[in-house]
């Protein structure tokens, strides 16, 4: 499968990336290379093999339901561009 420029633009837009034409061309060739690799893997007969959901064959460890964190709001908010009344402020996103 090879990608079109439009495919790359759509992926870039979903990922919130601004790309110029040269970047699109280069990303297109790199992404197409990845898809070729995937196509090669998909050609392998996997009948009867359970799909893998993680690279390691171990299962999730669980945490006890305990509160272990206390507020670090002041510290965290020192790196926020804008805060007010304890809230992080961002450009308006109302629909």
């Amino acid at each position: 499968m090879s990608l079109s420029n439009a495919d790359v633009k759509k992926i870039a837009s979903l990922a919130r990336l601004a790309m110029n034409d040269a970047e699109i061309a280069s990303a297109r060739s790199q992404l197409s290379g990845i898809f070729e690799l995937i196509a090669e893997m998909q050609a392998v007969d996997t009948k009867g093999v359970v799909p893998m959901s993680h690279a390691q064959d171990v299962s999730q460890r669980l945490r006890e339901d305990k509160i272990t964190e206390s507020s670090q709001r002041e510290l965290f908010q020192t790196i926020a561009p804008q805060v007010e009344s304890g809230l992080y402020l961002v450009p308006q996103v109302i629909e």
Partner: protein
Amino acid sequence: MQWEIIIGLEVHTQLSTNSKIFSGASTTYGAEPNTQADAVSIALPGVLPVLNKGAVERAIKFGLAIGANIASRSVFARKNYFYPDLPKGYQISQFDLPVVGQGELTIQVEPLSGNGKPYEKVVRVTRAHLEEDAGKSLHEDFRGMTGIDLNRAGTPLLEIVSEPDMRSAAEAVAYAKTLHSLVRWIGICDGNMQEGSFRCDVNVSVRRPGAPLGTRREIKNLNSFKFMQQAIDYEVQWQIDTLENGGKIQQATVLFDPEKGTTHAMRSKEEAHDYRYFPDPDLLPLDITPSMLAQARDTLPELPQAKRERYVTELGLTPYDASILTSSREMAEFFEAALAEAPDQRKICANWLIGDVSAQLNRDGLDIAQCPITPKQLGGMLKRISDGTISNAGAKEVFRVMWSESGEADAIIDAKGLRQVSDTGAIEKIVDEIIANNPTQVADYRGGKDKLFGFFVGLAMKASKGKANPAQLNEVLKRKLDNNK
């Protein structure tokens, strides 16, 4: 021509854990903004999610309660979208391998209008999956900016998805209410709808009977049963009107405006959502072992449906009474504790709870958990009704005093002199006096005016200050009056 209404629900229940689903931050409602937003909740680079055992246990309990298959292995996935209340850029959810598979819920439907009779229906639950909640956006008061509070981000949710099995607003509301009662019953969610602990999305479509499914519109974020009913009624009528006027329904997400009582479509995005789900590499597959299942099963209380059936078969209550007494776990526990005091008074205990207790709770705006009378107090009173110490009138007085002033039934009976007179000698004396003092009425009665019997009962009750045992009084009166008929 008829239209058939098709409804399916997606319900987000906030699980009642102490800490968040993937971190040790508190989930307490109403804290100062961002004081419960730890490094994981605000998605600082390099943090990793660690799954909360309490959230998994609650999901398992729910699955067992609806008779669903619990996946021995389930997988967390990333649902990608950009919104500032979701700072990672994706929500951790479950996609093709959810923790709870297909189950079912039996609902009791009370038709909302007309003379329809209540009926029972089984609604299939498609699946239930674990996911994290997002934060909150505040759009006002920030001069064109949006304020973000991430305290809620990472709160564990169980999203419960039904099949499109409901055919009316009444059925949808009955399903939502049954689910609401169940999650509280098994202790996995506090059910507080004002605080958003139980939020419903309702998918509605209409079709001609037998036709393929119509296009659905999804009413988002309903947080009251009343709004749910209003929103569905309005939406159904709107869809029918649109179709009958030759229009087409576009798939859309709509919001309900409680003030206008209408639904309106949210502005559609230029491109449809493309969530690009994929397994979250930060989380390993969740294995649920037989021992975890057994543990959840052991901590599960008797379920409402089983209790309802047992109340009918074992206690001989009507299905209606049984259904009201099992409407919440608090109600059922109150009933059982009161009944333990007077085990032979099943019907009377049910009547008091469904009648006087519920009516008084309603008047005072309380629920059964806040009832000023304890089950032991009510049971103590039932015991005295049962052994004939007090009449029904006396019981009402005992109940009134217990409610407004507290105290045990026995003490109130003594203090207020409510003990029923069951002494035949005393009752005969009263009756003799009445017969002697009312010769005209006695003659009329004996002459055939049967209706006068009530007159004598009234006089005798009054003379006994309401304390005469009514059955005995009737018996003595009848015997003495009819003697010389």
